[in-house]
């Protein structure tokens, strides 16, 4: 049996009076790729942000690598080193070069030796085809390039779980494919465990082992990837898929 990476039990989230997430339960095994789908405002981003402590939750537990997470900032700082996250707005640090962006975590947080960290950063840059840009500043890169660097920056910490929060949503269409290719390569070749929030249905269908379908802060459906796209179990999911298709 594969190792369980993350497990969420009875998670509840409120913004003041608004109930954002209702009784969320799921777990993810090592190497599994889970797509988090659902209409806008269904709580996908909030959920994925709860998983690395960027959002506080009011009830329930998150268990990472067999250990229950204590909801303190200190504890999350440890956990976050094992969870890579890439956001919609490619937010590289504009004051640092590409290489320094990537090295900040490994060198300052994980205390890897700069030489070792640089060697593995350069290997990762090669893989995404941006080795030539290591001395460049983020402002000199296109959106797609920035997003690829942001993925490398997250991978440099050697995470056990990757979270992708609508990473192609603000890219020009012609940039999207390059970024998605990197993510699917990561799933196939590196067997990375990941949770992907996306509106690219073809992409989700291609990479997802499992789909969590979210609406109004509830998980309505947890289905195997191929099955979800052919035969969703709920009417809501069917309607959602139809609305996304041309």
């Amino acid at each position: 049996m594969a190792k369980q990476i993350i497990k969420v039990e009875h998670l509840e989230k409120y913004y003041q009076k608004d109930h954002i997430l209702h009784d969320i339960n799921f777990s993810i095994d090592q190497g599994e790729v889970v797509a988090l789908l659902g209409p806008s405002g269904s709580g996908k981003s909030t959920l994925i942000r709860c998983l690395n402590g960027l959002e506080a939750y009011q009830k329930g537990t998150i268990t990472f690598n067999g250990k229950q997470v204590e909801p303190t900032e200190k504890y999350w700082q440890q956990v976050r080193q094992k969870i890579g996250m890439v956001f919609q707005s490619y937010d590289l640090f504009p004051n640092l070069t590409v290489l320094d962006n990537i090295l900040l975590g490994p060198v300052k947080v994980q205390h890897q030796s700069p030489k070792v960290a640089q060697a593995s950063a350069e290997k990762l840059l090669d893989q995404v085809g941006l080795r030539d840009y290591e001395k460049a500043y983020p402002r000199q890169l296109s959106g797609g390039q920035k997003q690829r660097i942001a993925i490398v920056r997250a991978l440099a910490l050697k995470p056990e779980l990757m979270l992708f929060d609508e990473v192609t949503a603000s890219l020009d269409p012609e940039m999207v494919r390059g970024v998605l290719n990197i993510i699917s390569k990561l799933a196939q070749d590196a067997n990375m465990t990941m949770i992907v929030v996306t509106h690219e249905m073809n992409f989700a269908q291609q990479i997802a082992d499992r789909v969590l379908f979210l609406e109004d802060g509830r998980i309505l459906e947890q289905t195997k990837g191929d099955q979800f796209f052919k035969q969703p179990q709920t009417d809501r999911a069917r309607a959602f898929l139809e609305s996304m298709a041309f």
Partner: protein
Amino acid sequence: MAHSGINVLFEGRNLIRLFGGLWTTVEIAGVALILGLLLGIVLGVLRTFPNRLLRLVLRLYLEFFRITPTVVLLFLFYYILPRQLGVNLPANQMAMLAFALWTSAEMSDIVRGALISVPKHQRESGMAIGLNRWQLYRYVLIPQAVSLELPATVNLVTRVIKTTSVLMLISVMDVINVGQQVVEANNQKFPTGVFWVYGMIFVMYFAIDYPLSWWAKRLDKKRLERANG
């Protein structure tokens, strides 16, 4: 030309005395600025922390120094501190202290403003790679805030230098005070001397402040170019 007013500057040691006064001005402003800007950065960072009590206290500190006219502030330090608290410092050092605290209050607001205008996503990206609070400020927020705040900081510097002209009120021998003495001592011989002495002081302040304000403008232009490029 013998009695033309400009000669007041070259009479005796007048010019040297004026430069001596200018040096006092620069010294007081310099020390106050170094201490005040450093303290202001620390206070500005603290003002972005979530602790409410801390924020309230620092906010009151800022408002006290911002609302009180500088002259009143100087008198408070010069007359009240020694009598009520037994702190006895020479006028020059009193002035440095008062100006340093005032600068730190103004600077704390500039730093805080710059820090909170760094986009929220930057903070979250930093947290996502496991940075702790200190590292987040050190590597991500402060470097970005500095480029945002630099023009405002340079403006504050020019303001502090200009405001040293009130130092004569607590009998610091700054350039204004020296100028007034020169004018009074030479009033008989050079009736139009007052124009030349204050003219000279104008040139002195201008020579210090104008390059700074020019630099501030340039920094701001550069920053905008970079932000849009």
